[in-house]
């Protein structure tokens, strides 16, 4: 709420009517049919990166590399879409592409995961640095070489298209693809799995108290490895969904929108709750879509406003979190002083 007030101040300062702008932001982002489908389309990979971040956070592991894992997922799935899809029966083509994309995403986090599990190296730094490697890898494939991923039919640098069988059809004329259903189902399935399964139980024990996990004979190395790899796979899936959906190729356009980093923000806002990730991702994507369309309205508002709004949403949400915790702490101190 405060975030919108701060955003409003910025709007007023730059000479726009806050209320009118918010009105059109909401209509372009959520309430118009074109707006909501655009939003859902953008939210689809964002849900996946959000789930990826939340999944690792659950075990106090900070995978900051969703961005890079997503690029690798895009590369891996594009390879599968080009090289394998033609040889596969129709129904298997899309799933194969998605799975291979997820697998390459997981592969990208394998090295940081092993370093973390075996040597305790900070996964924050290693995953973050690999983002830059991944970014340049994509650039190289498209701009730097005449390689496999580049479209051979034109001299314009763009990705080679995957087989038509390896792509989903959009819903009608919208920008939403069936992958959104997969993403939502995935979130619900993860929610259930982490709540009920032994794996979920062990991660929660480990996150709460590593000593207790050791006492109960849980294998910390195995848990760390599998959580990070799964997180990487989810991020890779985001890239794969981009390929089977709107892009259909290795598309450097993905590098511009920072869905990996946004996923971390979404996960933090959702307090690592998988179902909440879905809603937060949609909210966030709406701000983006609405913000983008404001640029081309009759009274153009810079996209920066949407970014300012995003930043302030995060800031105030985290600030609110601190207030919430502090209030708890004050109460606890009083109880202790009474008790002892």
């Amino acid at each position, binding site marked *: 709420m405060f975030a919108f007030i701060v955003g409003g101040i910025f709007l007023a300062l730059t000479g726009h009517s806050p209320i009118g702008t918010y009105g059109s932001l909401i209509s372009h982002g959520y309430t118009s049919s074109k707006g909501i489908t655009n939003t859902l389309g953008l939210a689809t990979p964002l849900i996946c990166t959000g789930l990826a971040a939340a999944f690792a956070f659950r075990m106090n592991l900070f995978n900051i590399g969703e961005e890079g894992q997503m690029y690798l997922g895009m590369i891996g799935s594009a390879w599968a879409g080009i090289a394998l899809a033609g040889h596969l029966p129709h129904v298997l083509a899309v799933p194969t592409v998605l799975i291979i994309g997820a697998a390459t995403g997981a592969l990208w986090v394998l090295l940081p995961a092993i370093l973390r599990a075996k040597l305790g190296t900070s996964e924050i730094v290693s995953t973050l640095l690999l983002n830059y490697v991944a970014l340049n890898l994509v650039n190289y494939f498209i701009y730097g070489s005449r390689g496999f991923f580049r479209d051979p039919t034109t001299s314009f640098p763009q990705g080679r298209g995957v087989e038509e069988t390896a792509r989903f059809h959009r819903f009608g004329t919208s920008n939403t693809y069936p992958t959104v259903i997969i993403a939502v189902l995935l979130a619900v399935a993860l929610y259930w799995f982490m709540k009920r399964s032994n794996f979920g139980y062990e991660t*929660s024990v480990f996150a709460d108290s590593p000593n207790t996990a050791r006492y109960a004979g849980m294998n910390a190395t195995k848990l760390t490895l599998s959580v990070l790899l799964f997180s990487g796979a989810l991020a890779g899936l985001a890239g794969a969904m981009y390929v089977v959906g709107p892009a259909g190729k290795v598309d450097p356009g993905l590098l511009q929108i920072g869905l990996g980093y946004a996923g971390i923000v979404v996960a933090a806002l959702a307090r690592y709750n998988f179902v909440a990730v879905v809603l937060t991702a949609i909210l966030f994507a709406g701000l983006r879509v609405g913000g983008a369309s404001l640029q081309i309205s009759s009274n153009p508002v810079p996209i920066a406003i949407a970014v300012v709004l995003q930043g302030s949403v995060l800031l105030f949400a985290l600030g609110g979190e601190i207030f919430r915790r502090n209030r708890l702490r004050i109460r606890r101190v009083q109880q202790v002083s009474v008790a002892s």
Partner: protein
Amino acid sequence: MSSASSEAAMGSHRLGGATLFALSARQVTKRFPGVLANDRVDFDLLPGEVHTLLGENGAGKSTLASVLCGLYKPDEGAVLRNGTQVRLTSPRHGLQNGIAMVHQHFRLVDRFTVAENVVLGHRNLPFRLRANDLEDQVAQVAERFGLPLDPRATVGELSAGQRQRVEIVKALYQGAEILLLDEPTALLAPPEVEKLFETVRAMTQAGKSVVFVSHKLGEVVDISDRVTVMRDGRVTGSVARGEADTRKLAELMVGRDIDLSPRRSRVAAQETLLQLDKVGLTKDGIERIANISLSVRAGEIVGIAGVSGNGQRELAEIVAGLQAPTSGEILINGARVNGIGTRKVREAGLAYVPEDRLGTGLAPSLSIVDNLVLTRDRGFLVDRKSALVEAEAFIKQLEIKTPHAHTATRKLSGGNSQKVLLAREIFGAGDNSRVLVVCSPTRGLDVGAVEAVHKLLDEARSSGKAVLLISEDLDEVLTLADKVLVLYRGSVVHEVAGHEVDVEAVGLAMAGLS
């Protein structure tokens, strides 16, 4: 129930009314949101007196001490210093009136020297500090009260006992006439406790008064001239030395009869279930455990006594499979279990209650139900339904105080979380589990909870389990064990049957003097 004794005590107060009390509380009431921490409390302290304020956790004794030293303002009632009312506004103000408190958790700057810590916060320091002068002054104060301290030592490098001395010297340096000590022996080794008592005697001889705030019956009570007992924010009795035994005091504290008398095996011990044969552990070139052999039979408790840090932790972790011994053999039910890992040791029949309840034995943020599943074989999906049934049964049987079975264990009191842990390890571990290793099970617990824990361990023994009790609390070992072993620097230096224990010999062995 204790009105007779408390009236008698009040009577003696009135007799002493002619003398001037150094410090008194009159009808002090202090409320916190939802809690009445002090309810019309009276308290009197004579000059040169050692007075213990005894009560369980939450009885209100620390609140009263905080009121007396100026940390809290009473909602109602008054604090009297030498018979005149004082309105203390801060601990500093309390100090100006000669009242100082030493908190259980020391408030010292680790990187400063002893002398720097002592003069810290003193108002009338010269602008330019001359380290030598200060150090001499501090050394003088320390010497006068028999507190050996090097004023140049860095506080971070001192032992708990030495830090406590720094706190006391600090209070004395700032002119304290009345010293309130919160749980003063909690962190000290026995020789340090003796040193503390010498200091206290030196202080009382100089006319200063000392108040111990404690929840433990024991040494502190023994050297007090008077003991005032609190329960639920009220004073339940005040008795002079020699007027009441520990049992009576425990009753005043808890409000019911407490049985802390020795419990011994009532059945003949049977087959050997746990055996250690010449077990040793060398780590980083240091021998932590040296050549320990012992056996525990079904239906008996073997107690390991010793001062903390003499290999207790290592011994427990070796038996529990958390560490592999570097030499020797461990047999559970006749099967060798060296270094096969905690899960397999459990399968072989071991249950383990570690010293650190929350943070090792239990996952603090998880619920009681989830903590009961911790040591189970869980399969792919966790079965919380049966665990819930089990949790509710335990809550009822063991009178675990909790809102419900889904409450996080860290929200429980120490005694209640220990009950959860013991219940899981004793009753929840299956019929195959017949060896129980327990470490310091009553550390930090109330008298009532101690009784409950002892009863549980006794029940485990009677049900035919072999119990290895490793505890730094000698009284606990002597109360429960059928056989007592003393651990000193990683080896067993003394071994005696529980009913033949010579306390002095055990004490000497603990100090490494046998």
